[in-house]
């Protein structure tokens, strides 16, 4: 940009006259006087990216190897944040924090149950709103922050999964002792072509809760009789 130089300096009176005509106060970005002086930076040019494929593979491998070396330490540059309890991997510290609090903290669960104050923080760290339920949080994220309904780092999803897996892993004894025992339908065991029964007999009559102890007592009595 060429600049015209001027050898003449303005006198105080001339300056005062000029200043009298110039607007004072706050300059808004939309000020018409500024339009003529656009920022001298070149306009932004959209650019794509192309990375040498081998480099990506190398990076991935190095990352994976570093992950395998340092399990459960969320401080390395190339690591995700992994829950030590259930091994769920989350991309940010905030999401891991929410996960640990909401899934593994009994104090949090008790506070939610009491319901006197909102406990569920927004998925966005910068948002300070707190909600009473996970559903309220989900609605908030969808309406206010334009989250997709199937947000992939949703904690409630993992809770459902967590409960399901816990049910699958739990012992039969616990289930039988529960009040819902009578509601569970009897399912015939699948044989997959092997007709010989190699397990305990599953067709035994179902016992009422508490009968097991009586059986043990019977057993003891029987043993005493044998003596």
């Amino acid at each position: 940009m060429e600049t015209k130089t001027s050898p003449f300096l303005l006198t105080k009176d001339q300056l005062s006259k000029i200043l009298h005509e110039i607007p004072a106060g706050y300059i808004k970005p939309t000020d018409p006087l500024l339009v003529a002086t656009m920022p001298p930076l070149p306009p932004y040019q959209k650019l794509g990216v192309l990375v040498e494929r081998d480099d990506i593979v190398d990076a991935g491998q190095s990352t994976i190897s570093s992950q395998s070396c340092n399990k459960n330490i969320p401080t390395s540059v190339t690591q995700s944040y992994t829950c030590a309890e259930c091994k769920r991997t989350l991309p940010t510290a905030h999401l891991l924090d929410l996960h640990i609090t909401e899934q593994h903290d009994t104090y949090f669960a008790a506070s939610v149950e009491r319901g006197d104050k909102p406990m569920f923080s927004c998925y966005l760290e910068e948002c300070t709103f707190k909600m009473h339920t996970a559903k309220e949080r989900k609605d908030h994220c969808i309406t206010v922050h334009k989250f997709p309904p199937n947000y992939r780092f949703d904690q409630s999803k993992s809770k459902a999964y967590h409960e399901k897996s816990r049910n699958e892993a739990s012992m039969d004894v616990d289930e039988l002792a529960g009040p819902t025992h009578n509601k569970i339908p009897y399912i015939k065991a699948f044989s997959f072509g092997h007709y010989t029964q190699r397990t305990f007999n599953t067709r035994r009559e179902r016992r009422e809760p508490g009968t097991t102890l009586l059986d043990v007592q019977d057993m003891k009595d029987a043993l005493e009789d044998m003596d």
Partner: protein
Amino acid sequence: MSDNSSSTTVKLEDNFLRQKVREYARRQRQELRTSATDALRFGLGKIKEEIKEIEHLSVKDVNGLVARIKRRKHATSDDMYRLSYAFLQGNENINAFADKQGAVQVLVKELTGTDLTRRFDAAECFCNFSLGEAHVCEKIATLAGTYLVTYMDIKEPRLKRSCLWTLANILSTSNKATTTLLQMQLVPKLWKLYTAPADDLNVYQEDAAICLYLIATSAADLLSSEDRRYIAEHVHEKCASGPASEYYMYIIFQTEILRLEQELCLRNSKNLLSFVETCLQGDFKTPTEKFKVIYAVRVFTNIVATFTCIDNAKLIKNLVETLNRLFALQDESLTMDLLRLVKNIMNLQQSDKLLDHLQVHAFGSMQLYI
């Protein structure tokens, strides 16, 4: 004997320490190598001009890839690499992909999956996909925007940078997509990256600054009061000597936080003034320096206009000297900006003593006023 045993212990400790240092150095080298991988950047269609031997990928190829990834409900690294390649070659490939329902969702799935390599590929795919027109960028913002914004907090450098580049492409294309991204609290995340102290691991200041610059240029009126408040609260966190500091004054000026968040800015006025002071020491030779100085003058003008309670002593040191140095540059637009600043200072001081010391060169446009 005891001397021998103590020396053996010292040797063992020495070895242990050396081994630890070696291990640390090895890991550091590996991390630096990972983050130092070069990424070539191309505009839409430019790749054909740059690399003549490139394999041409047509709309038919894109359709084939889309059919495959939709059928399998996941995309391999190969698929995504070819897609990125195809997007770089032309807008017709981008539009063909955008028109296929469910294709973007597969990329989103890979972007949020557990496989790190596929996450990289998906992010780079999105970056090239964002070279498309407004409707494409709006689609990305709606379906993947949340994750792109979330990934501002992650540690993987390549993934983070690809997401920043994608966001910059989107922000420069569509106001509707920008609105969506702003609702996802993009501004605080960008501000955090921008103001982070520069070191080997925090190298995103420039990319974050470009995103903020794009928002300040075309979407400043779309900013929420929360976004402005966040900037005003954290306005002092940017170091004047830090990377991409040339954008700082422009962002402050365009977002109007001085007027809309007066109280918060007044608290940080000392930092703002010292930043202005540093900027005004620029040599005005390069476009970047000019940009920095012009907006520093404008911000300074607004500081003087807004904070009438500022003590005169707090105004920048050697004010007359600095003003005369800038007037001597004889840049017409800068001189007009400086005169607005002088008028505000005179109003604040309620005297015209300052004029006795100023040396302002006359320009053609000034003849109208004299």
